[in-house]
């Protein structure tokens, strides 16, 4: 019953061949009524129709392909119904696939609590689809959405300039919005920004190029999403392997499990363990399916070291090249997520990689005013505030700046009494503090992409 080893149909779905389908996560952000539900509904509906028809037709023929008229926005549930029930407007995850890729959409509603929701959705997303209503233009709200997504590390932005049908598919209207959008993205140092004129309602340039926008020769939204190179494929970076779970092998050896946060892991590779800073080599990389010579970034694996060194859950293995920083006092961007405001004097629990420590938010808070993008001094932080802060921890964190690696630079704060997740943080760097820190000049390492990082070490 399970003998399907060579079925080409299934092989193509699983991607055993070279044209392997991969996974792209993106967020969608827009203000109410910009057409986000309609757009997502169309993506889900049309890709399902296209993809699955195509799949099914490989094995079956003559099936009925006709579909009745469908209200696309029904595919995603209605916000009004939720509001009536008093349910928190929240991030919803949706799924679709094409033969080339599986997509996970973090659908983040763009109103009251948009900062909290967008931050949550953006934290795991690579790309952002920003809805812009062509009849309204590039509004301040759009800027905020882009700002938050870029704060969370998104570098690939596509503006879906929607409701083009209502502006007579005007090239001029589109060009004006696209120009404003791109120059704002430039301002934030965003790597990749593009705009597409669409009508979610009519389906223009969502899946197929529209004949009503002949003046536009760019990719459709789906083409853009399918062609975007996926991140985390960068295995040229030095290895980062946060230890998640320690087991004992039959032989009595300790084995270390975790998910590779950066780089390629190779058998025989020399690694430095943190916080002990002992060195060892990767003796074996094992998975349920057997031993391997190397493991790609993102893999969950189990390894053995050639030496019995001090290493536990919360520890880290780092590869050759530049080493992570190590500090108990860091500067970070903080997004406050909780209805209870932030009190600098309060102790919080901080979770970073697989490690949990005590933390305190320093007294000097700089709230970022999202209308002006300026820092303003603040005494406390309210829900949805974004701030520049300093964090002190009970033990040094071993990290890379968030902009280099999200796993190595992201953390959450937890209220130790209510147990709620109250903030999300992104480490910018270690803070030198004469009383506690000194920098070891001899340990300067050069990164692959240029800048020098000083590893700061506690006495």
């Amino acid at each position: 019953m399970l003998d399907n080893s060579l079925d080409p149909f299934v092989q193509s779905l699983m991607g055993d061949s070279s044209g392997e389908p991969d996974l792209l996560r993106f967020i969608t952000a827009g203000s109410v009524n910009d057409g986000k539900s309609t757009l997502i509904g169309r993506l889900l509906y049309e890709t399902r129709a296209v993809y699955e028809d195509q799949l099914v037709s490989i094995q079956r023929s003559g099936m009925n392909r006709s579909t009745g008229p469908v209200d696309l926005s029904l595919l995603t549930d209605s916000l009004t119904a939720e509001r009536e029930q008093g349910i928190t407007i929240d991030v919803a995850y949706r799924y679709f696939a094409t033969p080339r890729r599986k997509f996970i959409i973090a659908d983040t509603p763009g109103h009251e609590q948009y900062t909290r929701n967008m931050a949550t959705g953006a934290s795991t997303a690579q790309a952002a689809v920003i809805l812009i209503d062509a009849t309204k233009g590039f509004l301040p709200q759009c800027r905020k959405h882009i700002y938050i997504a870029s704060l969370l590390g998104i570098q690939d932005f596509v503006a879906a300039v929607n409701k083009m049908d209502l502006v007579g598919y005007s090239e001029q209207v589109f060009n004006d919005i696209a120009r404003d959008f791109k120059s704002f993205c430039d301002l934030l140092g965003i790597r990749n920004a593009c705009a597409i004129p669409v009508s979610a309602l009519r389906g223009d340039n969502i899946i197929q190029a529209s004949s009503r926008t002949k003046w536009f020769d760019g990719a459709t939204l789906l083409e853009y999403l399918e062609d975007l190179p996926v991140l985390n494929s960068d295995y040229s970076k030095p290895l980062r392997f946060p230890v998640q779970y320690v087991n004992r092998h039959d032989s009595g050896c300790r084995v270390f499990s975790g998910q590779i946060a950066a780089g390629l892991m190779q058998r025989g590779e020399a690694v430095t363990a943190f916080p002990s800073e002992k060195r060892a080599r990767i003796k074996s990389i094992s998975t349920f399916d057997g031993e391997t010579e190397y493991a790609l970034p993102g893999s969950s694996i189990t390894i053995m070291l050639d030496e019995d060194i001090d290493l536990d859950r919360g520890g880290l293995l780092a590869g050759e090249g530049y080493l992570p920083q190590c500090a108990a006092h860091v500067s970070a961007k903080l997004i406050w997520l909780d209805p209870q405001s932030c009190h600098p004097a309060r102790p919080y629990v901080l979770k970073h990689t697989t490690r949990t420590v005590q933390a305190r938010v320093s007294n000097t808070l700089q709230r970022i005013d999202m209308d002006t993008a300026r820092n303003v001094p603040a005494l406390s932080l309210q829900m949805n505030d974004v701030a520049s802060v300093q964090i002190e921890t009970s033990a040094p964190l071993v990290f890379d700046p968030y902009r280099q690696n999200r796993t190595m630079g992201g953390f959450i704060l937890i209220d130790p009494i209510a147990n709620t997740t109250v903030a999300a943080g992104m480490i910018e760097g270690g803070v030198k503090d004469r009383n506690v820190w000194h920098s070891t000049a001899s340990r300067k390492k050069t990164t692959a992409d240029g800048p020098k990082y000083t590893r700061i070490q506690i006495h």
Partner: protein
Amino acid sequence: MQSKTLSHLRQLEAESVFILREAAAEFCKPVMLYSIGKDSAVMLRLAQKAFYPGKIPFPLLHIDTHYKFPEMIQFRDWYAKQAGAELIVHTNERALSEGANPYALGTQKCCSLLKTRALLDALAEGGFDVAFGGARRDEENSRAKERVYSFRDGQGQWDPRNQRPELWNLFNGRHNPGENIRVFPLSNWTELDIWLYICAENIPLVPLYFAREREAVERAGSVVLMQRGMRLLPGERPEMIKCRMRSLGCVPCSAAIRSDADTVPKIIAEMLSFRKSEHGNIMDHDDEGALEMKRREGYF
């Protein structure tokens, strides 16, 4: 080196393994809800992978209503042993001895006693602070917002207003004594992913999933398998029908479908074609949709 990125199935796998390890590391007493179905089968395989070369460091919990197909129970015992996992079977004996059955109580009430109540009791009895469940976000629209770590109040119920934001892969499992958490390692898997993974990994399934000739009657458009204790309605005559189950449940409340799909690839093809043929209603999820109401009470 063949490829630079993990394929989508391998990435889902790696993330699920991460979740399993994370919860196993941070909670005192985990348990895995094992329902014998295809999602449970995938979750169990992921647990084997997560803790390899060690054993799965928590027991499996099956809530047995005593109305399951005998093939399911046989398979359960065999598979748990194969996977080297400890198996706990819990039944609401009191309700059974008081005669709980779906004919007398109706499906919903019966489920509430034999599944939901039984589950909450078993979790409390075992002192489990976290239970892994095989639910997916794509199962129904209201699940799209479910967290990977889902908090349950003292009654085991899910309060959509009181869930923690989940950023990156930093899960917050802190809880007070008495509270428990459901962890859903398969949150980001779709039904198609599940079947593709079963295929890729050659994961054994209960034979009821595969089409073959079975003794059955056709009743109100569905195929009802002849099982012990099954009563025929006037005029019904059992015949051999090539059929299979799309989801596994209790004998009295489960129906099979006519099907020729006797291999995983054929099931995948058939599943995809169902979605389209269902009266043009693209919102229909064709599997286990009936379990929706049980989640609210705490079954999921």
